[in-house]
């Protein structure tokens, strides 16, 4: 298994530009059309309530019926529990938890049940559910609406964690997550939801657990997932003008992560920068850096750098929010430091 080099833009030359909500909708619609066991529930997502506060499920309750697509009360434990039960009974529920910070009110169902039911039952039951949730810094929503908490879930054996970096991958990975026979946490970006990006081609599916070499390079590997991949690509482009060749590895799946792709890349470049949106301390970057450091000991030309957001709650004031978040210049500085 090695990394797949894949164009993230669809085949035709001028891709349709869509909002993030449509990227999600495309996958949800495709999965529901393909498999009658796919169910959707979460707050406000049926058409009676407007098809989701972001419109990511617009039209689906009308198209697939009120039995399969349901708005719920504000009861995340009940939402997640219903997903667990339905999954055990053979369904493929997609539970939407509006924002990632609200996962904190239903962690028990995710961690003690969804993740463990297959193991604890000795393989008699399985839990093929998908949790869609949204988060991210930059929208001025502050401490309780912006956290990236994927490291928690990556630390829970039995869960898969997916964080797309662009609209086409979003569609391809979400569709695959729904069809995956394991519980998957699918983390969407609040800002990408509101931004436009190139649509995926019809039927786009991307394998979980496989990284994407988003840009090939030979001097330094930038490894990450989610929004900062776009910043890494921008900086890679900028540095190429200076003759620095940056390889960008988009993990796509955070757990299980594509160790082979990462090690192959860093073995080639000898330098690594890890980047994620989450707070740096005790984030996923630690695992990746520690693994590279252990596996490629003696082959590295520079210390592995990690870029993440600062070690504070997410502030609201725009100046503080900016200071809090990872940035392109953080990535650039980290890359440069490995080149000295």
């Amino acid at each position, binding site marked *: 298994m090695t990394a797949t080099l894949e164009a993230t833009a669809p085949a035709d030359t001028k891709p349709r530009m869509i909002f993030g909500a449509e990227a999600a909708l495309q996958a949800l619609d495709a999965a529901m059309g393909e498999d009658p066991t796919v*169910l959707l529930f979460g707050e406000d997502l049926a058409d009676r309530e407007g098809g989701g506060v972001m419109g990511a499920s617009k039209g689906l309750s009308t198209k697939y019926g009120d*039995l*399969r697509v*349901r708005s*719920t*009360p504000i*009861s*995340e*434990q*009940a*939402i*997640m*529990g*219903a*997903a*667990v*039960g*339905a*999954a*055990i*009974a*053979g*369904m493929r*529920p997609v539970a939407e938890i509006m924002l990632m910070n609200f996962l904190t009110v239903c962690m*028990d*169902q995710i961690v*003690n*049940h969804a993740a463990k*039911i*297959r*193991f*604890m*039952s*000795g*393989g*008699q*039951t*399985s839990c093929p559910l998908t949790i869609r949730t949204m988060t991210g810094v930059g929208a001025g929503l502050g401490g309780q609406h912006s956290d990236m908490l994927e490291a928690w879930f990556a630390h829970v*054996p*039995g869960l*898969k964690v997916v964080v797309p970096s662009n609209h086409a991958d979003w569609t391809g990975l979400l569709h695959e997550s729904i069809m995956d*026979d*394991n519980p998957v946490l699918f983390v969407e970006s609040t800002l990408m939801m509101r931004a436009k990006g190139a649509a995926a081609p019809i039927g786009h599916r991307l394998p979980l657990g496989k990284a994407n070499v988003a840009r090939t390079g030979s001097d330094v590997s930038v490894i990450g997932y989610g929004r900062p991949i776009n910043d890494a690509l921008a900086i890679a482009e900028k540095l190429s003008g200076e003759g620095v060749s940056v390889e960008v590895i988009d993990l796509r799946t955070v757990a*299980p992560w594509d160790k082979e792709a990462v090690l192959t890349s860093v073995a080639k470049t000898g330098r690594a920068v890890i980047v994620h949106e989450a707070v740096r301390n005790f984030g996923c970057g630690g695992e990746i850096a520690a693994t590279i450091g252990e596996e490629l000991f003696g082959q590295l030309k520079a210390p592995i750098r990690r870029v993440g957001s600062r070690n504070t709650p997410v502030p609201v004031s725009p100046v503080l929010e900016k200071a809090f978040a990872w940035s392109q210049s953080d990535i650039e500085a980290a890359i440069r430091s490995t080149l000295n």
Partner: protein
Amino acid sequence: MTSPRTSNAPDGDTLVEIYRRAQLIRHCGEQFLKTIRAGRIQAPYYSPRGQEVLAAATMVTLAADDYVVTIYRGLHDQLAKGVPLKELWAEYAGKASGSCKGKGGPMHITHPASGVVVTTGVVGSGIPIANGLALASQVNGDGKIALTSFGDGATNIGAFHEALNLASVWKLPVIFLCQNNLYAEHTSFANGTGCENIAMRAASYGMPGVQVNGNDAVAMYRAAADAVARARAGEGPTLIEARTFRFEGHILGDDSHYIPKEEMAAAIAADPVPALRRQIVAAGYATDEALDAIEDRIVADVAEALAYAIAEPYPDVAELGRDVLDVEIVP
């Protein structure tokens, strides 16, 4: 709190079957206690002693493929719903032939063939899961219903509240069975719960709430059968509060020091298992001899399951990497 007693009383054969299941629970439980106390098996043990008739009279009202979600104190529910003794014992003993290959243990007994699809160790957590099972039935239109069993203490946790409301809003075919044994670990019902009974909490969700003496086989059967009929007819969920008592401590090793001696003595004096036997014999549904024969058979079966569990091998260490995901991993 409503009490629409419309279902018929159980007939004689059904009462005898309830008795059989109750005795199975009692003997199996006693043997677990002995075996664990003797150190032949290491397992946490939450005795259902005193709650046998409740479980037996409830589970006879369900079909074989109806779902049951129960808790750590679930031995009675599991046996009454049909989990086979050998797989159960082997699981308690952590053996490869246990129902969960030794991975789940006593707190997570799972046996889909008998409908016991989830056993949880987190208070209240099974309640929302039962909704999901019922939801699948509703979508599939397969007529299956889900029953979730939990304690009095569990009704103070958020998951209970959210799940009952959702079941009501979605009219799910689910039965919420609260086995009110008057204690949550060491805390008495009155000291932990702000209202006088659990059944009345159903009003907050616009669903029927029924209080019943869970130790009375006939009353329990009728309350359960009512709820089953409602769920089966698509009329939505029911909350049943079945009053009962646990005779052993919360967990093996607990000496019930927090329970007044008279309260315990009165409960034991009213032991529902012999009471049911007297009722059956008095009504002429079965003779003492016939009931003895049933009991003998149970004793033999339990002994066989125990011997099996002890003799079976432990799982291979390679099992650790299996069932974490759908494909085997290197752990």
